């Protein structure tokens, strides 16, 4: 174990996998000479050279398509989006090509590729740079969606994603890049599709991913002061979803709040709460509550921004109401 940052953990995963597998390469804007817009690929150019660590023009659709073709031809691209906001330009390649190639070709071609970068809201960057898109991609058969909430998960999940033979949408969080945590050294793999219980509790289940996991943990501490013992479940992989862990937790606590940074309508919380309704109906003592980003584009002003995002206080309040406490 060593204490390293979330960005260093991602860097370690990529370096380990590139050392292990010659087919793996990293491509994206500013990944090489600049050492990464968020320094995730720090030192990788020096280590692997320009053949395998490749700066691209600002051309998301183009280099994502290049990744699709390279993957179809047998390589294993890691394509970095500076942020997922820019990947909107590449959605045709993600949705129409990468996700479907295996199916459309009846298995003749597949698309083992990791598309990664920062998602969610950053700080004070306004509407076009603060968005959560995991629900878009999680809706699509053929894709996997992975979102780590801490450094150890970042390393283990990214390594697993690179080894995975499907296209993995790997959404990091800019605010988390500097987080420090204990991370296993050397090869470390966390299987995809496995949720993690970040805090054990008995009164209510808080389901939260990515940056919201930290919020949920903070809310759990507040709730503890009120005598509410919250369990925090981090799905880690959004698609496919380890709903068994969520359902088992709800069977124990009988109550759930699903938290996400993204918008409410047709969000991840909508899906998870629907699954709890479908599979855990008789375990519920209260309707599943959701805490989500407000249904507005992200504003710039600090107070507006923080109001638009979910807060620890909102999670606490939702949990309190769900627990029927005065």
């Amino acid at each position, binding site marked *: 174990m060593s204490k390293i940052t979330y960005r260093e953990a991602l860097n370690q995963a990529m370096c380990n996998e590139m050392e292990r597998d010659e087919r793996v390469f990293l491509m994206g804007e500013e990944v090489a000479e600049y050492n990464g817009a968020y320094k995730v690929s720090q030192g990788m150019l020096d280590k692997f050279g320009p053949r395998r660590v490749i700066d691209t023009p600002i051309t998301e659709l183009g280099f994502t398509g290049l990744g699709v073709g390279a993957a179809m031809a047998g390589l294993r691209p890691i394509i970095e989006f500076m942020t997922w906001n820019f990947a909107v330009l590449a959605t045709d390649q993600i949705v129409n090509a990468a996700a479907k190639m295996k199916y459309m070709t009846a298995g003749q071609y597949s698309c083992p590729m990791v598309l990664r970068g920062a998602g969610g809201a950053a700080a004070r960057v306004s509407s076009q740079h603060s968005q959560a898109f995991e629900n878009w991609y999680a809706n699509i058969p053929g894709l996997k969606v992975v979102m780590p909430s801490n450094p150890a998960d970042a390393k283990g999940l990214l390594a697993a994603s690179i080894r995975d033979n499907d296209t993995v949408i790997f959404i990091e969080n800019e605010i988390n890049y500097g987080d420090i945590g204990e991370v296993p050294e050397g090869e470390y793999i966390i299987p995809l599709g496995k949720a993690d219980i970040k805090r054990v509790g008995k009164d209510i289940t808080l389901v939260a991913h990515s940056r919201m996991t930290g919020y949920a943990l903070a809310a759990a501490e507040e709730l503890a002061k009120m005598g509410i013992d919250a369990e925090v479940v981090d799905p880690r992989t959004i698609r496919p979803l380890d709903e068994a862990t969520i359902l088992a937790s709800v069977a124990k606590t*009988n109550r759930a709040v699903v938290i996400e940074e993204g918008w409410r309508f047709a969000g991840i919380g909508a899906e998870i709460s629907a699954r709890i309704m479908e599979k855990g*109906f*008789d*375990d*519920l*003592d*209260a309707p599943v509550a959701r805490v989500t980003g407000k249904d507005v584009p992200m504003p710039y002003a600090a107070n507006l921004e923080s109001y638009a995002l979910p807060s620890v206080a909102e999670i606490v309040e939702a949990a309190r*109401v769900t627990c*029927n406490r005065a």
Partner: protein
Amino acid sequence: MPIDVFMTQLSPTMTEGKIARWLKKEGDELVSGEVLVEIETDKATMEVEVIEEGTLHKIIAAEGTLIPVGTAIAVIAEDGEEVPADYMPESTGEAPVLETTATADIPASPEPVAQAIATTPAPDPVTAQTVEVDMAEVVRAANDKRIKASPLARRLAKQKGINIAAITGTGPKGRIVKADIEKASKRGINLGGQSFTPVALRPLPTGPMPYHADEYDAIENSMMRKAISRRLTESKQQVPHFYLSMDVQMDRLMDLRAQLNESADGAFKLSVNDFIVKAVAKALVDVPAANASWTDSHTYQHKHAHISIAVAIEGGLITPVVRFSEQKSIVEISNEIKELAGKAREGALKPEEYTGGTFSISNLGMYGIKQFNAIVNPPEGAILAVGGTEERAVAENGQVVVKKMMTLTLSCDHRVVDGAVGAEYLNALKKHIECPASVLI
């Protein structure tokens, strides 16, 4: 739209109600909270308050008539509304009447909803666009007898055999939640759910009575009379009764009672019955097997002694329940019985005050009865019949001595209480009565 007032279910077992008295007459202004009508149920006479304000347009059900639950009994006109002369509530006659056996846990029935929607007259095309109808509200209104309970609460109630209809929800909008079921389960009340649903009775043959008409007065049976008739007949027909009698010495208990009453200086006055209730409860703790209820799948062994006490009232009897008797002092029990008996005589007992008992006591000692056999009060497993205390010549150590004696008879439901258990119980009870200091601990 005129508002229909329906006969609503006012007790868990109520299937129909009698209009006892209208407190408002046609044309009266109705203010929310005022009493509109008194309804006599199988258990009590209940006041029904005004919920929808307006003018009492029409009384459909006259005083003294028996109306099935779910049938309209009156029509309220909203303020300033002209009710068409030919307006009749949809429910009259063909109301969604509950099954006569009325399981108390009424499942939400989709039919009334569908009916309500289907029979809503088609709006005229001009107004159709301007009138916004919240369909969810319409459905909810038509479905308002549905009990709001969380899925978990329903599941737990089913598992524990708890009648969810008898529980007051403490969740949002009165939703019954897990905590309510757990509380109910702790109190041991609210049995009488699905597991105890009485089976429909075959009606007794009704023919001309072999009496001359001038030799009797025909007194119409009250709702209560009918309920007593139904429940006791069911009990005698379905519950395999057996009876155990035992004599107990009352000298020490009578002495203790006199001492306590004397020292109370008017603060309380304990009856023999108060002591017996307490002793019964203590003995139930000693022999929990006697504190049990039968269902086809399970035997419910109760954790607390909720003692039903038969109270004679005008026109019949009712059994208010002293809950957690095993935890209460004699003084508390005494006060509670006085209060409950008073309410019973006034017909003011709430359903939760006369349901949920686990064991009954019927005491006819004050009427000079020496010994009798009582009928088990389902779903309870046993009832104790208490005779009067009297001096009797008793053989003791080869001598004939005079002792204050009382005869107790335990009627048991043999499905849950066997002879040996009943005997063990009576012995425990005898011990507490004959050594009454134990009931003070």
